[in-house]
């Protein structure tokens, strides 16, 4: 866990659309004061369930619309170009790049499931310090803070629920790593 508790996050569409299907989705708002969502997200959701969840949380201030400014879009375009220059990288597209640019400028946690963005940020000196979390890290952090109920006899339970609800598979290696952290941090003293 970082020394300074993050207050704000910005979520890309791929994260939010899967997250909205999770039975414990509202735990996100126990981790962050507000989660910014770029305006483009609203054009990408269609189901009543997701729209209703987003609208009700916008009304409560737990989600906040983020309107992209010209300088952010310009930085995001540079990220896209840089990702396309290297044959060793996966292309990053503009909507996710906007989240990374905002994350760097404002110190927000970037919530994404985009592997291209995660890979790019890990090798780019300008973006290496931006906190990037997938659903895996969000559930892990909520568990560490005991915002989700965790049984030491089944540390994978909350992750399995996410996989069931969203048809999203966590890489086994990453899941094992996170479960080990939970075992050490939470279960040693119980």
């Amino acid at each position, binding site marked *: *866990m*970082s020394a300074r508790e993050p207050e704000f996050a910005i979520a890309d*569409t*791929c994260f939010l*659309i*899967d997250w909205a299907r999770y039975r414990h989705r509202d735990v996100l708002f126990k981790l962050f004061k507000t989660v910014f969502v770029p305006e483009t997200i609203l*054009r*990408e*959701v*269609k*189901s009543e369930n*997701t729209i209703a969840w987003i609208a009700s949380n916008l009304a409560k201030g737990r989600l906040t619309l983020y309107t992209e400014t010209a300088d952010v879009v310009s930085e995001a375009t540079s990220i896209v170009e840089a990702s396309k220059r290297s044959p*060793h990288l*996966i*292309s990053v*597209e503009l*909507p*996710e790049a906007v989240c990374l640019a905002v994350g760097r400028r404002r110190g927000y946690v970037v919530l*994404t*499931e*985009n*592997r*291209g963005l*995660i*890979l790019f940020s*890990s090798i780019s000196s300008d973006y290496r310090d931006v*906190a*990037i*979390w*997938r659903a*895996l*890290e969000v559930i*892990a*952090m909520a568990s560490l803070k005991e915002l989700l109920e965790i049984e030491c006899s089944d540390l994978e339970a909350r992750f399995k629920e996410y996989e069931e609800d*969203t*048809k*999203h*598979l*966590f*890489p086994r*290696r*990453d899941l094992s790593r*996170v479960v080990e*952290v939970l075992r050490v941090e939470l279960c040693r003293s119980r």
Partner: protein
Amino acid sequence: MRATVKLEDLEEAREIRRRYANWDYIRKQPPRIRVALEYYVETGDLYVASRIAGVTIEEFNELRIKAGIPNVC
């Protein structure tokens, strides 16, 4: 705690998507949707796949789930 991705993870994720995909379902789809689902299996890129299919990201996510393709990340 920070998300990390290694290049070798990408091929593993692609193999998982290929293995879980319901190819009979995919082959029965209209051409645009079929090509987009095949693109998603190969790349895992939901945004571009949705643009190929001509639908929103959430609509494409529903197609992904119906086609049995896991989002591996």
